[in-house]
């Protein structure tokens, strides 16, 4: 693959975890490269992505949802939606998939050292944030206050439930979960993520806010962050597009002259304000 970016490496599925059930289920796939040396040398930074393929069905571009601080495997979290993701959901541990990457830019984990971080996620949008959160938590002393705001439609739709439960136990991380509609037994926030953000009211001082989720959520999260005094270079998000090559050749994921696959997927709100193009 070194000479041929289109040819994936083979990886075994070690474990499949159900994150969310229902109409649009989400599963997390733990993958291990067959080549041991490659597995040891495969390095990535939170925010980066990988092309995962099932031979005969096709390829899809996913955020790597594991943190590089956890060695020996990579994980992707997949919502069952189209042809390839549906086929992936039918797989079992031991099955083989193709993986190529890592692709794209990343969250500035080095530049954000010493800063307070606010993670604002919704639904499957948590996948890239999960990588970042686990990375930051594993390097806890390097960062300031951590606030994790995450919302889903119902309590059943919350991804990474066990990990949120673990994070809630920690004294050095503040987790603020929400669901959209009232449910019996739910004692936390009820309402949309942008409203929960206003309730949590993080200070913009020495802070970076990172938000991933449905476009409509991102729109109102950014509005509310600005209300709270965050400037456009303190706000980061990730974008998604239909992709085929992952390396800026096949053409379809462009926003203006930038390709989301290789120039993204992480953009600051400042960058997004200054590029034009459909998204």
């Amino acid at each position, binding site marked *: 693959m070194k000479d*041929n970016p289109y040819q994936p490496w083979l990886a075994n599925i070690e474990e499949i975890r159900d994150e969310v059930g229902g109409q649009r289920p989400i599963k997390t796939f733990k993958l291990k490269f067959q080549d041991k040396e490659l597995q040891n040398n495969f390095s990535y930074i939170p925010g980066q992505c990988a092309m995962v393929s099932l*031979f005969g069905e096709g390829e899809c571009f996913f955020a790597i949802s594991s943190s590089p601080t956890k060695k020996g495997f990579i994980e992707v979290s997949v919502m069952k939606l189209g042809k390839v993701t549906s086929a992936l959901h039918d797989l079992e541990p031991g099955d083989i998939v193709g993986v190529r990457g890592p692709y794209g830019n990343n969250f500035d984990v080095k530049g954000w050292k010493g800063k307070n971080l606010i993670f604002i996620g919704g639904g499957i949008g948590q996948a890239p944030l999960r990588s970042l959160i686990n990375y930051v938590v594993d390097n806890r002393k390097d960062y300031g206050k951590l606030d994790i705001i995450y919302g889903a439609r119902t309590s059943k739709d919350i991804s990474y439930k066990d990990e949120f439960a673990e994070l809630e136990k920690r004294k050095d991380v503040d987790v603020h979960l929400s669901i959209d509609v009232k449910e019996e037994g739910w004692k936390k926030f009820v309402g949309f993520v942008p409203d929960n953000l206003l309730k949590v009211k993080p200070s913009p001082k020495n802070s970076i806010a990172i938000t991933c989720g449905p476009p409509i959520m991102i729109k109102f999260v950014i509005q509310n962050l600005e209300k709270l005094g965050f400037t456009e270079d303190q706000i980061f998000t990730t974008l998604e597009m239909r992709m085929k090559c992952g390396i800026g050749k096949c053409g379809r994921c462009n926003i203006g002259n930038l390709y989301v696959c290789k120039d993204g997927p992480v953009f600051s709100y400042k960058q997004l304000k200054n590029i034009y193009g459909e998204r």
Partner: protein
Amino acid sequence: MDSLLLSKNDLPKFMTELIKKNKVFAPVESNGTIIYEQITKPSEMNLDFCKSEYPPKALILNQTETLFKFTPGTKAKIESVDIDEKKIIFGIRPCDAKSIAILEHAFKGDYKDPYFLKKRENTVLVGLSCTKPEINCFCTSFDDTPASSKYLDILLTDIGDNYYVEVTNDKGKLLTKSMSQLFKPAKDSDIKKKKEVEKKAVDIISRHQKTNGIADKLDKIFEHPFWKDIAFKCVGCGTCTYLCPTCHCFDIQDESTLTKGARVRVWDTCMNPEYTLHASGYNPRPARTNRVRNRIYHKYNYYPKNFDVIACVGCGRCIDLCPVNIDIIDVVTRAGEVKP
């Protein structure tokens, strides 16, 4: 650069020698149009044409390319394909040769595309100057001429009884040296003759696109209603992009039976709504206005921003073959005149 002469009478001999040792693709008449096909003898060629409808980029960026083979399913194995094939494209026009140089920018960059780059490396471009540009040709709008040798390994220009032969690099030299008995050095008078032929061809070109400052101008008119007006008559057939020698967008699909399969890439077109359609149903470019605008911006704004060159060579195929007469010369010239 070497300047040589090849007698027209010796062209068949030259071609026969080439064919003996190489896979040679040359312009051939088929169903009333010219296409570049592999030839087995010189008489199959037809050199009396302006441009092929189907661009010769297809010999380097194949319309369908097998990326690798695999055993399908969950116990997959991968098998690489051989991409080492060597060939000569004879009779390629300077505009089409330039398109291959333009495409090369997209396939180099941060990630090297081995299929395109290997094929380009293994291909010798032996061009033929264009002496009869057609009504929609406008290569001169980009500081090139129908007889530019810049993007070719060898360029032949018909100067009467002889071809004036420009050998621009080592790849070309290797070829002419192997048949040095057929070539003799060109004289100053031959160079003069080539210049005359070139000027005559340039003078035939009657249409010109105003490309001055177009990239900057496009930055200012992305939301302009002008694009709606331009896209109004587009039927979204994609002919403009399929036949464009600089369009490089592709799709990747798995083709398989129960026991064997291949991942293939095929030309795609930004004129298809499915091209950008997300699995969620969301489409960032849902309307033809979005898609027509993207085609123009990709060529005249995004490509110049990324690679410092306009991704159009002025071949005029998209104008010739558009079923509703969308005219890129007109579109770009008018875009330059629109008030932001």
